[in-house]
């Protein structure tokens, strides 16, 4: 179990984070660049000293600013960190990189069991034929797999991932995220992923924490956070691209571009009619900008909208009050005209 409750100073703001991650649980810390997500990981890893707070892992206090003050050094924390730059040691072969932690923690790599584990992990990561290669010879995906194997062979008590695959293409990122997810579950240790890609967070995590400007704004199951953001700022961060005022009410409906149907279907959500200000192809469908009153939003639809006016249904949208907080809708099928 990983328990974190810390405040850490950054140049422009203070990061405040409180999270508990159970063994085998996968948590994603999601937010825009510069939100303070990496600082949280660095505090857990012992690379940054917090202004105040505690970090506990498996009953061990790693950091405490109280009395007595505790600051376990990084090399005694048994916390693994995988960053965007895989950080392979360029002067060591793939094999030496993989077994680095083992020789650091227990003298030299030895024993049949150690050899079996190495073979098993190298095989599961597709590295069997690369053990003698130098890191400079590897592709981006291979480097990340070696770094992941090194992390797994280190037998850490917690796994931290700081946007590990952000520089890779979408397909590779998806497959590696799936791999990390499976391996994290197998190891049954707390895992925390930091990312600004919502799709990565959703693919990895049991629980999503949305962070902005040093504060955790919402925590919950990924679906819950995306479908019911706690406020307008969270909604913006998870992809809501517009807010349509509801006539006769003080609140506004959040519009997620992927949760819009063409035509009117009041049983499934809020029906709005607006002026089409722009339309462009997007993937296999079309993307259109609609202007409803003073509010505009973007939606993705399977076909191009005909004419200058269009009616669409916002599927079960979240509603936000004037203060930006999530409110319960009093009438879910109101019709708004542009």
């Amino acid at each position, binding site marked *: 179990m990983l328990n974190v409750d810390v405040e850490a100073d950054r140049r422009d703001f203070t990061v405040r984070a409180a999270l508990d991650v159970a063994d085998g649980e996968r948590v994603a810390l999601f937010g825009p660049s510069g939100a303070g997500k990496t600082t949280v990981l660095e505090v857990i890893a012992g*690379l940054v000293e917090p202004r105040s707070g505690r970090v506990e892992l498996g009953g061990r206090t790693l950091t405490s600013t109280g009395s007595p003050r505790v600051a376990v050094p*990084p*090399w005694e*924390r048994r916390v693994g960190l995988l960053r965007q730059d895989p*950080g392979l*040691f360029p002067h060591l072969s793939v094999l030496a990189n993989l077994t680095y*932690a083992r020789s650091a*923690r227990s003298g030299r790599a030895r024993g049949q069991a150690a050899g079996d584990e190495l073979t098993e992990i190298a095989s599961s990561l597709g590295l069997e034929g690369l053990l003698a290669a130098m890191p*400079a010879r590897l592709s981006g995906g291979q480097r990340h797999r070696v770094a992941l194997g090194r992390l797994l062979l*280190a037998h850490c008590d917690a796994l931290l991932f700081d946007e590990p695959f952000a520089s890779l293409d979408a397909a590779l990122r998806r497959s590696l995220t799936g791999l990390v997810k499976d391996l994290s579950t197998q190891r049954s240790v707390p895992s925390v992923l930091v990312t600004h890609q919502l799709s990565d967070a959703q693919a990895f995590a049991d629980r999503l924490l949305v962070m902005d400007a040093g504060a955790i704004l919402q925590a919950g199951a990924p679906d819950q956070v995306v479908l019911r953001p706690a406020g307008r700022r969270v909604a913006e961060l998870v992809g809501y691209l517009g807010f349509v005022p509801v006539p006769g009410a003080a609140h506004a409906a959040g519009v997620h571009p992927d949760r819009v149907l063409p035509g009117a279907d009041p049983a499934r959500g809020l029906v709005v009619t607006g002026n089409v200000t722009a339309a462009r192809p997007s993937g296999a469908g079309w993307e259109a900008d609609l202007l409803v009153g003073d509010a505009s939003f973007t939606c993705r639809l399977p076909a191009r909208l005909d004419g200058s006016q269009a009616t669409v249904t916002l599927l079960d949208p979240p509603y936000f009050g004037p203060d930006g907080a999530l409110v319960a809708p009093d009438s879910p099928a109101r019709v708004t005209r542009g």
Partner: protein
Amino acid sequence: MITLITRISPGDLWSALTGPGNLDPLITSVESGGVTLAVLICVCTPLAWMMARDRLPFPRIWEAGVLCALLLPPLVIGLLLVFMVGPYTWIGSILDWLHQSATNTFLALVIAEVYESAPYYVLGAQAAFSGVDTRLEQQAGLLGDRPFTVFRRITLPLAAPGLAMSLAVAWARAIGAFGAVVIIAYHPFGIPMQIYTTLQETGLYTALPYALVLLVVALPLPLAAYVWSARAERRRRG
């Protein structure tokens, strides 16, 4: 090089190398150069690492100090060394108490060579250490290595090609040191002093063979460092 080789006759070279005691300056230079390198490795390597990692108080002052030693003419360094380690200074008194002297002794020769060559090594080593990504050191720490082990397993091997080249340059500076040497260590003669005195006493043509000897003695280490650095770089590239 070509001028040097074409101006030396085999007879002059032979007599320069075979005369009684003629190899003594060469031995003195190699010995003092070796001791100088040992001092640089033991004292200046940690200094360069601390400068590269901002671990020193007032880091700009340390950098300015190293740069001053580089910018000052070696002759001036020699004059300043007289005021620092000469017989009438407190360091000189301590040396005297230890029955040592930093004037016209082997110790003085080493001190002069250290001061002439250290800035070249420190600045080169600092650059070599700065080139090592600190995130790799952090990663090694997170994998269980203590700081000194991180230095031994990660920092040192990655900085080694740069350190070797800096050491080669420092070696060349040490073995060819003259300006500071002529002030505080006229004796015992190293090769540069031998060249100078031979030039004064018997002329240009008899001095030139010693220059060739200096070159032949000084060159292998830089060459080896260059070859080794290139090989290490090739190995790293796979």
